[in-house]
């Protein structure tokens, strides 16, 4: 599920700005995971969040294509 949850958001928008893939958007003053399929699991949102509100998971929400494996 990539970026998994946001708990205790203070609405500062740091995560929205620091997500390279535009996964997070603001909704009624709080950050919401708007486009989880585009999450690249880089953790920048979590690392920029001043109140440590973001939880990550290593699983992707869409099938992953690899060259072999």
């Amino acid at each position, binding site marked *: 599920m990539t970026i998994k949850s946001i708990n205790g958001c*203070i609405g500062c928008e740091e995560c929205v700005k620091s997500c390279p893939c535009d996964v997070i958007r603001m909704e009624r*003053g709080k950050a919401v995971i708007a486009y989880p399929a585009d999450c690249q699991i880089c953790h920048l949102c979590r690392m920029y969040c*001043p109140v440590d509100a973001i939880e990550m998971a290593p699983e992707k929400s869409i099938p992953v294509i690899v060259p072999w494996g």
Partner: protein
Amino acid sequence: MKLSARTFAIIAGVAIFVGLPLLFYALGDAPRRTILKEALSILTLLAFTMMLGQFFLARSNETLLSLFRPPQIQKVHKVIAYTAIGVIFLHPALIVLPRFLEGGIRPWDAFVTMITDWGNLGIVLGLVAWGVMVVLGVTVFFRKNLIPRFTLRYRGWRYFHGALAVSFTILALWHSIALGRHTDLAMSVFFVTLALLGFALLARLYWAAAPKKPSNALISGGAAT
């Protein structure tokens, strides 16, 4: 018989003010983080519940007064309140301090970002609540110097102290419901219930005291002249 009622009161108090928040914490679906961060969260939740508990560890709680001597209650009230105020005083710092142990935003940058997020009502409420709490703590510390300055002396001080406590509780409660990681529906209902009961106890005490107020004021006024 008296002893077992006392024991019962203590057990009930611990169950309500420690057991229930821990239970709601355990039942909540906020993701678990490192032991340090979860410990800090629990500490903060307990500190806030303890602050709510102060309404029940006071003159307003007649049941308790019937079981314990006022100095005993006062002492417990004081110890718990100073401890809880200490924790909540550090609460803004405790949120960012674990960042010392990991990569990502530096604690001071996080702190500045957080407390300058004035566009967010929850943050503003929290800052004001924190300020009110600091006033609450400082005035309590210097109450011996302050009490003589109130027109109503000790009664005036009580009104002042109660008003600060109520303001802090409303602001902090709102703040925690708006922003709290663990303040889900169950925890919110629990906090609100405790707060309302506490306010009701205080209100009853003041209503009960109100009719006597003019005469009391007169007496104390007379004594001063």
